[in-house]
C-alpha cells in the first residue's frame, strides 16, 4: 500500500469521509523499516564491561548511538547470553554523571578540570618525590584482575614496587588458594554433562555466570539432579530439585559429614582415590568423627537428608559436580572458608570427578606471546612479597603476591607504609569493610589517583581522576578468560568514538610512564602489544577484531587428571599447609561469630548479589535500578518466625546495628531464609553525592539503600587475611522511621 504524507492526509481528510477509504495506510513493517532506515546500523564484536566477566557481545549501533547487544554464541564464558547488566550498561555510556575529562581535586569534594598533560606532569612529579623519600614500596596499585593486569603490573614493577593488589581479599581468596593447595589450580566444571549438581553457597543465578547457567539449564533438561545448599532460597534454588536450608557458616560440617558417609559406606571411587589422591587414610581417619548426627547439630540439616545426599552423590559419581565456589561460602565469607574449599576438594576426590565428564577440570589456556625483550626491555625484578605480608613466609605465605590483601591498604596507609596509590576499576571505599576506616586510611595517602568514569566514593577523595574511556569507547589487550572448554582469545574494541575527553587505559599508562622516567618500558603501541600476544597463535589482530572471539583449537578432553600440586595428586593432606604448620587435613572449625540464640534481636547478616547489580557500579543506572524499584528488591530478608517476635510486618522498616555501623532497611518476610540470619542484597548504599542519575530515577544512586560493608568489622583471616564478610552479628529492631 502506498504511504501518504501527513500533510497530504490532512488535506485528504478535510475533503471528507472519502479519505477514510484509504484505511490504516501504513503497516507496522513499513513503520519499523522507516525507523531503522533513518540511521545506518553497524555491528561491532567486543567484550562487555558491565561486570568483570567480560562476556563476548556484538554491539549494534544506529548512527553514532549504541543500540543493543547480543551475545556471541561460541564465547566460552557466556555461551551467547547477555544479562540485564550487559544490556542496561549500554545506557551508562550516556549517563550524565560521567566525568568529562581529567580532574584535580582542589578541596573537599571540589574538582577542577585540567589537561591530560598537566595531570601526567603533576602525578609524575609527586610520585617521583614520594618514591625518592619513602622508597618504591610506598607506591601501590589496586586493580580488578583483568587481562590488562599485565599492563598495570608492568607499570608498577617499572616503578620498583611489588604492591599490586586485587580485590581478592574481599571476594575469592580462599577459593583460589584452597583449590591451588588441593589440586594445583582453580578448576572449571563440566556442568552440562553432570548427572548431579550441588551448589554449596554458590549462586550463579545471582552472582551471574551466564555460561554456567546455560550449562545447568541444559543439564536439567537432560534430567540432571540439582541440590542447592544455602541459608537462603537463592535464585539458583529456583532451578533446583531441592533446597537445603543450612545454618550460615556451617557448610564445612555438611561436607565433612558427606565425606564421612561416603567413606563409612564404602561408596568412594576407589580406583580414582588410589591412583590420583594423596592422604586418603588420614582424611578418612579425620572425618570418622563427623557423623551425620553431629552435622545435623551444626547445620540444622537432618542426618537423614545428609545421608541421602551423600548416597545420591556417590550413586551418580563420577558424573557429579559440587560447585567449586566463588564469593559465597567458599569465598571470603567465613573463618572456615579455606577449610571448606579444601573439604570440597577432598569430597571431589572421593567422588573421583576430576577431569571426568560432568566433573571438574582445568580449562585449556592459549599461550600468548610476549614483546621481544631485546627491543622492549622487561621491567626490573621487584620483591617477591608485598607490604601487607603477602608472599612473606612469616606473615601471609599463602596469599599470592599480586593479589594481596586489598582491605589492608587503609591500615598500611595509616601506618605510613603506603604513600601513593593508583586505583583502577575498583572502589574500595564502598566495597571494603567499615567505610569510616577505609576513608581515614585512603585520606592519609599523599597521592591517590583514580581512573574511574564517574565520581565514585573513592574517586571523590582522590587527588587526581584520570577518566578511562568507557568500555564501549576503548581498546584493550587480548583476553583469554573465555577459555573454558576450549582455548579462546577475544578482544575489546571501541564501538563508538569517546564522547568525552577520556583515554583508554593503555594511553593513560603511557602518558604517566613518560613523566615517571619509566617511558622506556612503554615504547610500544597497544596494537604492537596485541600482535605480539597473538603471534604464537597464528591469529591476526584483524581477524580477531572482526570475529570478536576465536577458538584456537585445543579443547578440554576428559581423561586421567594432570594435577599441579607438589605430589602431582589431589592432596587430601596438603603438603604445603603441612610445611607451614597449618591444619593439613580438612577439619572442623567454628565460624568466628555466632548470633545469640537467646536474643530475639540477634542475627547474622549475610549478603549476596542480585542478577541485575554488581559491586558498587550498577546502582546508578536507571535501566537496572528500575528492576529493584519494580520488585521492591532492596528489602532485607527475614524469616517470618523471627519477624513475628520483633513485631515486624512485611515491608516494615528495621534498624540494623553492628559493632561498627548502623542503618535502616525495609524487611521482606520470607520463608526462603534461615531463621538465624537476615539477608542484605549487595549493590546498594552508594554514598557519593555524584551518583545523581540513579537517584533521580527510582531506587538507586546516592543515598539509596545500605551495604553489608557498613556493618562488617575489619577482620583479617589468620591464614589468608581475607574479610570474612559474613561474620557479622547485628541487632535488628523494628524502626518507626523510613528506610529503603
Amino acid at each position: 500500500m502506498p504511504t501518504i504524507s501527513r500533510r497530504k492526509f490532512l488535506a485528504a481528510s478535510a475533503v471528507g469521509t472519502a479519505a477514510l477509504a484509504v484505511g490504516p495506510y501504513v503497516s507496522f513493517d513499513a513503520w519499523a523499516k522507516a525507523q531503522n532506515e533513518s540511521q545506518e546500523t553497524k555491528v561491532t564484536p567486543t567484550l562487555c564491561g558491565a561486570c568483570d566477566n567480560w562476556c563476548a557481545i556484538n554491539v549494534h549501533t544506529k548512527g553514532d548511538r549504541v543500540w543493543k547487544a547480543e551475545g556471541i554464541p561460541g564465547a566460552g564464558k557466556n555461551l551467547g547470553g547477555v544479562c540485564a547488566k550487559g544490556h542496561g550498561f549500554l545506557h551508562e555510556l550516556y549517563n550524565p554523571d560521567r566525568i568529562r575529562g581529567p580532574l584535580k581535586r582542589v578541596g573537599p569534594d571540589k574538582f577542577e578540570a585540567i589537561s591530560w598533560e598537566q595531570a601526567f606532569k603533576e602525578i609524575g612529579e609527586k610520585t617521583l618525590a614520594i618514591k625518592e623519600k619513602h622508597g618504591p614500596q610506598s607506591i601501590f596499585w589496586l586493580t580488578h584482575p583483568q587481562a590488562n593486569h599485565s599492563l598495570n603490573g608492568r607499570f608498577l614493577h617499572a616503578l620498583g614496587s611489588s604492591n599490586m593488589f586485587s580485590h581478592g581479599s574481599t571476594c575469592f581468596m580462599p577459593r583460589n588458594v584452597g583449590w591451588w593447595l588441593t589440586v594445583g589450580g582453580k578448576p572449571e566444571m563440566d556442568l552440562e554433562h553432570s548427572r548431579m549438581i550441588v551448589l554449596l553457597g554458590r549462586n550463579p543465578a545471582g552472582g551471574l555466570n551466564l555460561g554456567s547457567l546455560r550449562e545447568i539449564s541444559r543439564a536439567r533438561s537432560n534430567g540432571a539432579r540439582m541440590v542447592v545448599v544455602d541459608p537462603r532460597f537463592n535464585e539458583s534454588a529456583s532451578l533446583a530439585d531441592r533446597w537445603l536450608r543450612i545454618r550460615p557458616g556451617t557448610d564445612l560440617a555438611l561436607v565433612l559429614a558427606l565425606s564421612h558417609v561416603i567413606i563409612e559406606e564404602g561408596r568412594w571411587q576407589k580406583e580414582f582415590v588410589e591412583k590420583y589422591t594423596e592422604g586418603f587414610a588420614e582424611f578418612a581417619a579425620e572425618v570418622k568423627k563427623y557423623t551425620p548426627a553431629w552435622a545435623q547439630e551444626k547445620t540444622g540439616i537432618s542426618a537423614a537428608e545428609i545421608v541421602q545426599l551423600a548416597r545420591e552423590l556417590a550413586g551418580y559419581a563420577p558424573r557429579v559436580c559440587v560447585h567449586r565456589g566463588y564469593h559465597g561460602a567458599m569465598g571470603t565469607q567465613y573463618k572456615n572458608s579455606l577449610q571448606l574449599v579444601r573439604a570440597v576438594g577432598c569430597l571431589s576426590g572421593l567422588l573421583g570427578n576430576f577431569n571426568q565428564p560432568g566433573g571438574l577440570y582445568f580449562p585449556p589456556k592459549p599461550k600468548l606471546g610476549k614483546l621481544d625483550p631485546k627491543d622492549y626491555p622487561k621491567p626490573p625484578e621487584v620483591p617477591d612479597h608485598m607490604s601487607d605480608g603477602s608472599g612473606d613466609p612469616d606473615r601471609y605465605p599463602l596469599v599470592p603476591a599480586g593479589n594481596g590483601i586489598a582491605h589492608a591498604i587503609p591500615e598500611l596507609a595509616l601506618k605510613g607504609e603506603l604513600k601513593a596509590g593508583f586505583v583502577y576499576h575498583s572502589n574500595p571505599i564502598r566495597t571494603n569493610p567499615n567505610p569510616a576506616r577505609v576513608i581515614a586510611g585512603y585520606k592519609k595517602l599523599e597521592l591517590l589517583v583514580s581512573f574511574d568514569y564517574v565520581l565514585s566514593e573513592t574517586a571523590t577523595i582522590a587527588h587526581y581522576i584520570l577518566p578511562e574511556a568507557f568500555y564501549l569507547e576503548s581498546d584493550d589487550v587480548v583476553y583469554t578468560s573465555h577459555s573454558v572448554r576450549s582455548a579462546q582469545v577475544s578482544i575489546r574494541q571501541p564501538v563508538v568514538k569517546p564522547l568525552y575527553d577520556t583515554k583508554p587505559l593503555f594511553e593513560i599508562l603511557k602518558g604517566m610512564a613518560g613523566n615517571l622516567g619509566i617511558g622506556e618500558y612503554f615504547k610500544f603501541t597497544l596494537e604492537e602489544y596485541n600482535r605480539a600476544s597473538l603471534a604464537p597463535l597464528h591469529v591476526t589482530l584483524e581477524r580477531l577484531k572482526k570475529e570478536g572471539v576465536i577458538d584456537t583449537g585445543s579443547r578440554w578432553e576428559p581423561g586421567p587428571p594432570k594435577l599441579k600440586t607438589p605430589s602431582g595428586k589431589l592432596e587430601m593432606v596438603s603438603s604445603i599447609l603441612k610445611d607451614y604448620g597449618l591444619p593439613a587435613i580438612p577439619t572442623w572449625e567454628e565460624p568466628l561469630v555466632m548470633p545469640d540464640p537467646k536474643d530475639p534481636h540477634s542475627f547474622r547478616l549475610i549478603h549476596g548479589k542480585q542478577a541485575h547489580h554488581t559491586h558498587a557500579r550498577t546502582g546508578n543506572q536507571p535501566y537496572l535500578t528500575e528492576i529493584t524499584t519494580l520488585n521492591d528488591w532492596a528489602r532485607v530478608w527475614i524469616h517470618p518466625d523471627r519477624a513475628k517476635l520483633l513485631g515486624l510486618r512485611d515491608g516494615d522498616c528495621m534498624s540494623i546495628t553492628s559493632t561498627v555501623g548502623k542503618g535502616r532497611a525495609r524487611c521482606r518476610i520470607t520463608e526462603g531464609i534461615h531463621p538465624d540470619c537476615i539477608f542484605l542484597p549487595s549493590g546498594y548504599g552508594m554514598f557519593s553525592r555524584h551518583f545523581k542519575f540513579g537517584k533521580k530515577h527510582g531506587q538507586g544512586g546516592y543515598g539509596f539503600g545500605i551495604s553489608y560493608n557498613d556493618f562488617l568489622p575489619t577482620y583479617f583471616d589468620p591464614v589468608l587475611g581475607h574479610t570474612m564478610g559474613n561474620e557479622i552479628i547485628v541487632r535488628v529492631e523494628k524502626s518507626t522511621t523510613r528506610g529503603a
Partner: protein
Amino acid sequence: MPHYGIAIDTTKCIGCHACRVACQNQNGLAYDQEFNRIVERERGRYPSFAKEFIPLQCNHCENAPCQRVCPTGATYTTKEGVVLVNPKTCVGCKYCVEACPYKMRMIDHHKGIVVKCVMCIDLVRQGGIPACVSTCPTQVRIFGDLDDPNSEISRFVATHRAQPLRADLDTRPRIFYKRS
C-alpha cells in the same frame, strides 16, 4: 505461513531480568517502559518452600480482546499470528489497555499511542529470534512455529503439556507455560 509462539518454562526462570532489558533495547524503550515483566511467587514452608518466577509478555492471543475493542483497527494480527499496533492509526484511547486480561499493553505517553511486545517480528522476519529468547541465560523461552508439529516449541508444548495462562478466558494465547 508459520504461526509463531513462545513456550516459557518457569521452572528454569531465575528472575534475572535479562529479557526485560534486552527487550527494552531492541525496541528502543525508556527505562520505565516494559514489554515483558517477571512476577515472583513464593509458596509453602521449609522444607517444601518453593519460589516461581513467571515471565509475562503479550500473549499474542488468537482471539485477542485488545483487537476486538480497538476502535480504529490499529491493533491487528499479522499473517504469522503476531498481534501488533499500527502506530500511525492508534489514537491512544486506551480501551485495549483496559480490555487486555493480561495487562501487557503500555501507553507510550511520548508518542501518544499504545505499545506492546511485537515478538521482535522484524528480527524474526530476518531469520532471527526475539531478543528475550536469545538473551536468556537459562533458556526459559523457546520460540518457534506452532503449526509445525516437529518444531522445538511444538514438541516442548506437547511433551510438557504446556498451557496458556488463563485458558478459561478463551483468548487462545500463543504463549505457553510449563509451570512445574
